[in-house]
């Protein structure tokens, strides 16, 4: 596993006395689709921010393509090939849809026309091509999610990190986004996904990592992990209790 694309080595994040992420390690190989699940407040998004550079880890290392990126800024990591979406979508509201994606595409396409062309390709990929000229501020939630994915893809990233892209979508829209991710994955894209929706996780069905109270609780195939009594207790048991 030493050649894995993304290697997380014992990362931890403390805020004062609070330990949000505690000694988490895992790998993501090229071409994989890995899901991270866990109850609310388990530290999933904090973990994500450690991987993408929004936060600096208190301990541990993040290796990307065997390079230690733990100290790099978010933009450096994006330049290296880490694309991401945000839990609360971060749309560039005054730009049009195609321009939003161009902002990502400019990373590898300096020229305006080249970037626009690449952006259009990506918009076709995510099914937003007919909305290209619309101001991004007026998009629906599901369109915004797809736009975020498109902006990340426009970076020509080696891995895309999706932070709860399904949250707040209705079943049809979830279906759309799921098939989008599945299609992209089939084309060879690598994904690391935070997901709340267990149905979705089951469908993706590759490796699943369970985070509970900031630490890794279990890791394995979706079936195994979701059958694990500890996971049921921590995740589903708690869910019932609320």
């Amino acid at each position, binding site marked *: 596993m030493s050649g894995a694309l993304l290697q997380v080595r014992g990362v931890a994040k403390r805020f004062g006395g609070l330990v949000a992420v505690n000694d988490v390690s895992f790998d993501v190989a090229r071409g994989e689709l890995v899901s991270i699940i866990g109850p609310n407040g388990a530290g999933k998004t904090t973990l994500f921010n450690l991987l993408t550079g*929004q936060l600096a880890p208190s301990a541990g290392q993040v290796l990307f393509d065997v390079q230690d990126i733990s100290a790099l800024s978010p933009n450096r990591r994006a330049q290296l090939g880490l694309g991401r979406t945000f839990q609360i979508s971060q749309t560039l509201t*005054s*730009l049009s849809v195609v*321009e939003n994606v161009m902002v990502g595409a400019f990373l590898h396409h300096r020229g305006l026309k080249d970037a626009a062309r690449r952006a259009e390709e990506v918009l076709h990929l995510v099914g937003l091509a007919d909305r290209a000229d619309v101001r991004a501020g007026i998009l629906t939630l599901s369109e915004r999610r797809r736009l975020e994915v498109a902006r990340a893809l426009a970076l020509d990233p080696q891995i895309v990190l999706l932070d709860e892209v399904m949250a707040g979508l209705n079943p049809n829209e979830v279906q759309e986004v799921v098939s989008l991710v599945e299609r992209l994955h089939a084309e060879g894209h690598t994904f690391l996904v935070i997901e709340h929706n267990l149905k979705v996780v089951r469908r993706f069905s590759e490796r699943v990592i369970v985070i509970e109270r900031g630490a890794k609780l279990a890791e394995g195939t979706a079936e195994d992990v979701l059958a694990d009594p500890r996971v049921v207790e921590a995740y589903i048991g708690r869910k019932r209790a609320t």
Partner: protein
Amino acid sequence: MINPDGASAFAPASSAGAADRTGPRTRSAPRVKTFASELPRALLVLGLLSGLVYLYSGDTFTLNTLAAAFLFAGLSSAWNIIGGFGGQFSLGHSVFFAVGAYTTANLYLKAGISPWIALAPAALLAALVACLLSWPVFRLRGPFFAIATMAFTEVALALGNYMESITGGTRGMSIPFRLGFANMIFRDRLSYALLMLGFAALCLLVVLAVHRSRLGYYLQAVRDNEQAARAAGISVLRVKLMGMALSAALTGIGGGLFFMQVRVADPAALLSLFEFGVKFALIALIGGLGTIYGPLLGALVVIPLESWLRAELGGIVPGANLIVLSLCLILAALFMKHGIVGSLQRLFTIATRRIPR
């Protein structure tokens, strides 16, 4: 919040296409406008402005007003690069303006360098000062960035009054009246109007080039959402600094031209918050913040209005021009956030909607 595409005030090409969305689109070329495709419109606008100068070439008062309007059109366009596109609300641009003015004047007076040539080091020095000053304060956002840049003005004023050898201190500095093209000193007002029109043209073309480039998009991305910008691989600080450097360089040139036109000024006048620092922003807001032609339109409305007010009411009510301007500012903030350009755009959309297809 801010419409980035001021250009469409004149001919909203994209919305025309959106109106008849009948079949599946069969485009091969992206719909994004480039510098080359925008250029004809900019040249047309500049041509119209030259026509205006030609029309009034015998009228000294109007020529003076036009010269001032063009100067501020250029300065406000320059401010718009970092303030409008980049969303970094600088109130300190009068510092870069003054740096440009004093560089030009000192090189001319002490080293005998023609102002035409001195404008280059003036621009460079203004950009350099801007980068050094804003590097640390770019971590501040919104109003705090504005306050810090306002404080620059105050520090610069204290330093300007102190450094008499460069600025002439509180007594000011004057440039002797020696006619000649090389000295950039003219008797007729037409030359000044054309000079300032040239400056406005330079600024407009630079703004257009920036807006239709990667830097322009990066600036707008930074303005809209820094976090998203970073996730797209953008070095936020570098983009802000580049925008600021360009903006300040043009502002420095404007300062040099202004000094050569008035030929006498003291630090308090050059660093005046109301007359320069804020006016750049005010004109951009009234014209259309973050649009290509907004600052130009804003200057063509605000400056003549102001000079008219000054002529009509200045003697009767002191500060009347500033009262009207400040009212415009408040009303624009409340009711016309997209400025004249935004309002024209809305009118255009309403008008085209009424026309039966």
